[in-house]
């Protein structure tokens, strides 16, 4: 760090110019500047740089038209919203029938899937709700491989 004098660094002075120091340190440096020519010189340099920079920023800000800036922002916002909503249909163009057909297809596929149409119901080939017979021996069997249901009753 470049030393301006034995007491303070250039960074201390730079922070002093930018008003970034705590109050007590700020006041100490302020007093010090009045009797230290080295620090005083550096302080002047920093102050002039800061002034030039601030003036330049102010000029640039003045060049910006706030109305135009607002319009640009609004336009950007609108475009991003359009993009997110329009992505789905932008490939289909303006054909309403195409959109309707696609929606109908999606609905039907969903309905069919939820009803279990795309996949056969799992479980046995038949569910036996009840059996009524005079014979005492009735067996309900399910085969291991195909889960084929067999009802067996003995007439004897």
């Amino acid at each position, binding site marked *: 760090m470049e030393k301006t004098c034995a007491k303070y660094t250039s960074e201390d002075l730079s922070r002093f110019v930018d008003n970034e120091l705590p109050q007590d340190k700020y006041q100490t440096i302020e007093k010090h500047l009045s009797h230290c020519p080295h620090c005083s010189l550096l302080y002047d340099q920093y102050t002039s740089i800061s002034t030039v920079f601030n003036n330049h920023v102010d000029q640039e800000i003045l060049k910006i038209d706030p109305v135009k800036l607002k319009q640009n922002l609004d336009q950007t916002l609108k475009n991003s919203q359009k993009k997110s909503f329009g992505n789905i249909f932008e490939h289909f163009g303006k054909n309403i029938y195409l959109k309707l*057909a696609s929606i109908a297809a999606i609905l*039907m*596929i969903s309905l069919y899937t939820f009803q279990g*149409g795309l996949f056969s119901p799992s479980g046995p080939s*038949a569910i036996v709700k009840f*059996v009524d017979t005079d014979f005492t021996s009735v067996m309900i069997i399910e085969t*291991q491989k195909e889960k*084929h249901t067999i*009802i067996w009753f003995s007439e004897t």
Partner: protein
Amino acid sequence: MVKFIKTIVILTGIFCFCFFSQPAFAKNRVLTDVKVIHASTSSIHLDPRLKGIVSELRSVFKYTSYRLLKDQSMDLKFNVAGHVNLPGERTLVVLPSDMDGKRIRYQINIKKKDRSIFQTQVLLKNNSSITIGGPQFNDGVLLFNISGSVQ
């Protein structure tokens, strides 16, 4: 090219609608097929028309012979009974009553000389079958393989 792709997409949409909307519309006919099988241990025989079902039966029974005595297909409406004459003065009555989800509810009744000897109600998976067996016949037993398919 874009027009061609659009046309293809439209046609696909229409196809999907027609194909997948089928279950949404009411189906009121049930194609019911009854196979009457004689199973015994007196010989070794396999009817080629029973190829699909015999492997399942063999996993459960020890019969060596499976003969197809009768194969009767019936195009039934719901709540309309179909009758199949069986050997030994027996009659099989099958009645598809309604649908329970993807299953067909069948009332099945086996009669002997007009007396009901066996009744059951089953929920049969569409395009699947159930086998009911047990009645004695000619040194063996009778098996009734009932399959159903909604149309």
